[in-house]
């Protein structure tokens, strides 16, 4: 028994306004957005963006995200260095938040999307429902990795006491922001309906 999907009825749903219309139309009759049954070329686009994000991840972690000038000496700190420093200063809760937002979320998101893409190429024993839920969580948590970039921005804007104490943004702040943006575009372009299509194909 197969499900009644829009595709099985020769229909497509507009990705912007959710209008269900004949798949033969080029444009959504309601809002004018290009109409596709599935997001076009989503697997390859997502993979290309994921590779870009993985490459960006290296400089984002090696380069300093923040530079502190205090009493004439300047200290450069990386994302991980900042977490270590916070632990040494006994600010455990802040260290945990920064570690989750800046390390676990972006790495988890990259791994999860790579895995989900891989299941589309080679099949998977995990049910489409579970993979769809995994995808939606990945999509939801994506923007939270921007926390560290905002923390740096606030510190830069606030901490400048003459020449005694100044905090400056490091080059990794922009690299990391770019990484977050690229992964957000990657997850937006991914199409979870492909899990279900693949499953239906296998049952035929």
């Amino acid at each position, binding site marked *: 028994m197969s499900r009644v999907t829009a595709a099985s009825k020769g229909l497509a749903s507009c990705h912007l306004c959710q209008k269900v219309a004949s798949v033969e139309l080029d444009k959504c009759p309601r809002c004018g957005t290009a109409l596709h049954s599935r997001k076009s070329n989503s697997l390859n686009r997502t993979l290309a963006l994921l590779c870009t994000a993985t490459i960006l991840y290296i400089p984002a972690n090696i380069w300093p995200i923040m530079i502190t000038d205090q009493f004439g000496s300047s200290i450069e700190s990386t994302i991980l260095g900042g977490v270590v420093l916070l632990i040494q200063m006994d600010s455990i809760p802040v260290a945990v938040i920064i570690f989750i937002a800046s390390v676990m979320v972006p790495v988890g998101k990259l791994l999860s999307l790579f895995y989900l893409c891989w299941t589309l190429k080679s099949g998977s024993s995990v049910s489409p*429902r579970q993979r769809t839920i995994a995808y939606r969580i990945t999509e939801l948590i994506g923007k939270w990795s921007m926390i560290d970039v905002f923390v740096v921005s606030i510190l830069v804007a606030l901490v*400048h006491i003459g020449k005694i104490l100044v905090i400056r*943004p490091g080059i990794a702040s922009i690299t990391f922001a770019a990484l977050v943006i690229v992964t957000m575009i990657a997850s937006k372009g991914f199409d979870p309906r492909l899990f279900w299509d693949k499953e239906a194909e296998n049952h035929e």
Partner: protein
Amino acid sequence: MSMHTHSDDQMACPSCDHLYDMSGLEQGQQARCGTCNHLLATYREHAYAHVVAFSISALIFFVLACCFPFMSFKSSGMESVMTLPQAITQIKGEGMWDLAILVACFILIIPALVMALTAALGISLLAGWRNHWAKDVAKLIFHLQVWSMVEVFFIGVLVSLFKIADMATVGVGIAFWSYAAFAIFFTLALSNLDTFQTWKNLEELEP
């Protein structure tokens, strides 16, 4: 009964493509996909009145958040006070104009634009106007809202408060509380603007 009127109540789940007839969904109800549990639509009571009230409140708090001091920092007998627009110019002043533009877009420009457009769309739908611009406004809102990071920024502010609390005396100003209120009203306004219902009503109001 023609095929055309019937298809207006059809919705395909964005996650699994399952086709649903939404004509039975009533005010105050929520619909979830039975196959994948995706939240399909939430019809809130008096949705557009709430959209208008919340988005206008959000805009008022946004103006306050931009005009008043956001945070202050006191160390070695010297104090620095900053407003949100000053924060952006300070980042630009450190030579990171690209970071300044990104932060400005994510926390100020896009959220304010989304709220202004939401207020306009809400008023238009509440009044039942037949106009040519409401659809374009709705398209912009649904494109832009992904890129608003109001709530993420606010958590970032709280983290930075803890981070520098040992370093110096840190204070929060009127703009801090205004931004918090802005974030709450922003979320409430958008949660009342259901995608499916909004577009259905826009189609009915086509000039």
